[in-house]
């Protein structure tokens, strides 16, 4: 398969998959099989492109001319390759997990769920491979709309309210700010192509650059930079696989990925560092890192805490881009990968806890680690990776981000990274400690049987069903859930040892195209 065909196939395969998912909607097994096959095929197709990019090739394909002189174009480069690889690779894992979760949780409208999921992945890959800003913008909006039914999946009033916040902020910022920025760029530069070194003419005034980058960074609301971060905690009403893949990986990473793309290929670091246009945004990102961590500490709901943790972690990447240094950008890009594996593990664990024990609040999870040892061990691994401790992948991205901060002489940001790590410890580790070292709440022994009965009455076949493990006091989630989260936890460890190839793969984005 030629690279250009593979690019198109990577975007189209999930869409074809979506059609087959709808067609097989009546049979749950066939539908889930289609999802898994589609995810695997997509990943294989994306993977075939890896070598070409590593060799420095930049295949480009234009699909159609949308507006005169402006087409839907895909161009491959390391950053997009990384993002597409992560999104499609973790899609397989999430699909496995989702099958276990959605069945274990007896969710409704599963066909709609898998269909929208496939469309969302297709648009995430479209964003990853976008060759110009128009293409990116188009897929960005498709991603927002295709995830709306996922956020409002349960159809409750709470979901409806969350959907309003979700759509209001994401559409509001993208049309209100990003669209203006894109058209403005088109007017000033006469092109929207992503090019090494940026496309804005050198003559552009510093004041305009400040405004324009502000429009972009806030217009890309998916990056959840404060004060436009409210949509992300709101989106947590969605089923956990959605929170895991979309709101820890695909959607939010699409946001920070876009910011990296814009700062590298639209502005160029030369322009940004010369004018200092992005400095104020770096400080806002730093404040977001700290504030969101502080908010996370106050949340008792596990998914809400993880959401605020994500808000905080995303700003690492925004900060990396706004430093306007090559090494900082590479660090930011690596953090896309590291955080993806760490946070998806945490969300998988949160979902597994919910399926197995129906607990959502951290205060209820005391002693739960003894019943779900695998889940809680993996949670610890994911948490340590987010914190950035060896031997886990998260340490490397923080390392390069700090190097970037040092290179630009902004030592205050290194302090921010350090404080943030401490805060991460403070809000993530106690969950595991509570789970393992404290006894379960007192009433639990007596009440346990009663608890089981009520669940069994509520959703027959749930507790003690064939999917659930109940061996010697261990009550883990369905096998497919546990398998998925073990896999991603292992990924966190593997990334620690294989960070150098990743670094070398990404290096061209820092050096302006020359590998």
């Amino acid at each position, binding site marked *: 398969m030629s690279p250009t065909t593979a690019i198109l196939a990577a975007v189209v395969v999930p869409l074809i998959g979506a059609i087959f998912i709808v067609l097989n909607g009546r049979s749950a097994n066939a539908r889930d099989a289609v999802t898994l096959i589609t995810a695997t095929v997509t990943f294989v197709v994306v993977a075939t492109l890896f070598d070409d990019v590593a060799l420095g090739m930049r295949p480009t394909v234009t699909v*159609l*001319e*949308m*507006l*005169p002189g402006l087409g839907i174009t895909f161009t491959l480069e390391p950053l997009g390759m990384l993002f597409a690889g992560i999104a499609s690779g973790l899609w397989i894992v999430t699909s496995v997990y989702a099958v276990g979760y959605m069945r274990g949780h007896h969710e409704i409208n599963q066909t709609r769920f898998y269909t929208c999921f496939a469309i969302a992945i297709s648009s995430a890959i479209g964003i990853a491979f976008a060759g110009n800003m128009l293409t990116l*913008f*188009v897929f960005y*909006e*498709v991603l927002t*709309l295709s995830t709306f039914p996922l956020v*409002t999946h349960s*159809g409750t009033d709470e979901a*409806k309210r969350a*959907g*309003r916040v979700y*759509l*209001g902020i994401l*559409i*509001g910022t993208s*049309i*209100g700010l990003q*669209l*203006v920025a894109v*058209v*403005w760029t*088109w*007017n000033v530069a006469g092109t929207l192509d992503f090019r090494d070194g940026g496309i804005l003419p050198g003559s552009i005034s510093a004041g305009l650059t400040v405004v324009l980058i502000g429009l972009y960074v806030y217009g890309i609301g998916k990056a959840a930079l404060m004060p436009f971060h409210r949509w992300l905690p709101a989106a947590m009403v969605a089923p956990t696989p959605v929170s895991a893949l979309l709101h820890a990986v695909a959607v939010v990473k699409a946001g920070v990925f876009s910011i990296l793309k814009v700062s590298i290929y639209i502005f160029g670091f030369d322009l940004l560092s010369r004018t200092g246009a992005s400095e104020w945004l770096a400080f806002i990102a730093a404040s977001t890192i700290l504030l969101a961590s502080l908010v996370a500490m106050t949340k008792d709901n596990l998914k809400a805490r993880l959401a605020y943790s994500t808000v905080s972690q995303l700003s690492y990447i925004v900060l990396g881009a706004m430093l306007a240094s090559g090494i900082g950008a590479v660090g930011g890009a690596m953090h896309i990968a590291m955080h993806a594996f760490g946070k998806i593990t945490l969300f998988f664990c949160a979902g597994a806890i919910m399926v197995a024990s129906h607990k959502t609040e951290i205060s209820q999870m005391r002693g739960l680690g003894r019943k779900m040892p695998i889940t809680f061990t993996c949670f610890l691994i994911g948490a340590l990776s987010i914190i950035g401790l060896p031997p886990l992948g998260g340490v490397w991205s923080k390392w390069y981000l700090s190097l970037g901060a040092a290179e630009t002489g902004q030592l205050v940001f290194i302090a921010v990274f350090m404080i943030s790590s401490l805060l991460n410890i403070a809000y993530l580790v106690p969950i595991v400690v509570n789970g393992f070292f404290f006894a379960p709440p007192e009433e639990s022994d007596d009440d346990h049987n009663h608890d089981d009965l009520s669940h069994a009455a509520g959703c027959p076949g749930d507790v003690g069903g064939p999917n659930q493990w109940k061996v010697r006091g261990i009550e883990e989630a369905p096998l497919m859930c546990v398998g998925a989260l073990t896999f991603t936890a292992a990924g966190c460890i593997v990334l620690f040892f294989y960070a150098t190839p990743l670094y070398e793969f990404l290096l061209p984005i820092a050096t302006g195209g020359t590998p």
Partner: protein
Amino acid sequence: MIAQHLPILQIVLPLMAAPVCMVIRHPQVVWIWATLITFLCLPISIALLVQVMAEGVIVYELGGWAAPWGIEYRIDKLNAFVLVIVTAIGAVVMPYARRTVDTEIPVSRVYLFYTMLLLCEAGLLGITITGDAFNLFVFLEVSSLSSYVLISFGKDRRALTAAYRYLIMGTIGATFYIIGVGLMYNATGSLNIYDLSKIIPELGGSRTIQAALAFLTVGLGLKLALFPMHMWLPNAYTYAPSAVTVFLAATATKVAVYALIRVTYTIFGTVDILEIVPVQDMFMVMAVIAMFVGSLVATYQVNVKRMLAYSSLAQIGYMMLGLSFDTITGVAAGIVHLFNHAAMKGGLFMALGAVAYRVGGVRLEHMAGLGKKMPWTMASFVAGGLGLIGVPLTVGFVSKWYLVQAALEKGWWMIAVLIVVCSLLAVIYVWRVVEVIYFLPASKVAQEAKEAPLSMLIPTWVLIGASIYFGIDATTTLDVAFAAARALLGDGG
């Protein structure tokens, strides 16, 4: 031979076919006849557009009398484009109309309905095609009178007052227009638009010409429902029969906008009168107010049809805003939005017509829970709504893109901000309905509803499909719009 006479055929066909309906009278046969005629009109207009794009302006002298004494039809890129819009909408509305007419109009009057619909189409086509200012007035009256009748066909008795109100306002508009034409005739001795565009610059800014311009713009402003001359529109759209709303919303205001473009850009295009009387600036102010007021009021409506009517006011504001920029990008954005809005608003009103047909009303409570009952109709409504918001891959995005670009080209970033703020208001009024459709359980009235019949669903999706297709590949429509804009601004016309 026939190719030569296409311009006149375009008008004569629907004009002559209308009285034939009176003779046939049988409801089904009349419908077949009317549909056939509209199907014939569409290829004619497409042929004309192709010819104009390839060979330039077509001039057709009626009865062989040379202008400026005789009446001439003068087709350039702009009106060829508008002709296609009108005939295309006509050809989609007719098949759609049959089912709605069954439920909304007494059998004994069905033949009158089709007569009027054909007359209305003939009138609108006449306004578009003619190169004669007085002849334009005649067709204006033909289309207006027939649309008063069409609106009064509405089942709700309030349709009568709505039609009456439109009658009063429309007549004032037409009268103003003819006074303007009279003043021009007084000063120039000519009624031919092309001729006028040559003579008026010589007269400069005489008081008579200024007065003529004032009367013409106000008169046409009433017809196109430019804020604050829009009071007739919401009720007229709300209470008219479904098919009529679709037809009028997608064509009538567009043709009035076209006529206004003719007056300001062709007749008065090169006169420095526009500096004495800043028509463009006034348009801009009114357009921006229309965008805001229309969108804001739309967010408060409980009747979805009325909501879309107010949204139309806002969209007319977009068109006028584009024209008021007086640059090629701006005018092209306005022109392309004529088409884009016709496609999406036509599709939206069709979806509502289907709801009225199945559920019996189009208030929010009727729409509740229809996401499950009428999935295809509701999907078309959502797609059309996304177009109103201006989401990429819909035509609304294309219009918005060029409007923002035109504003930024001129350095008016405030206007660019206003444009996007208005599209965000559209998010609110569209999503209100979407939530009702998908999140509320079906109300008692909607309990029995089922998917709309294919004869309504297919036309709906033709228009919505067009609004998506031309949003993904907008090069065709934009080429025409830019060519038309260049011709308007470039050759002194």
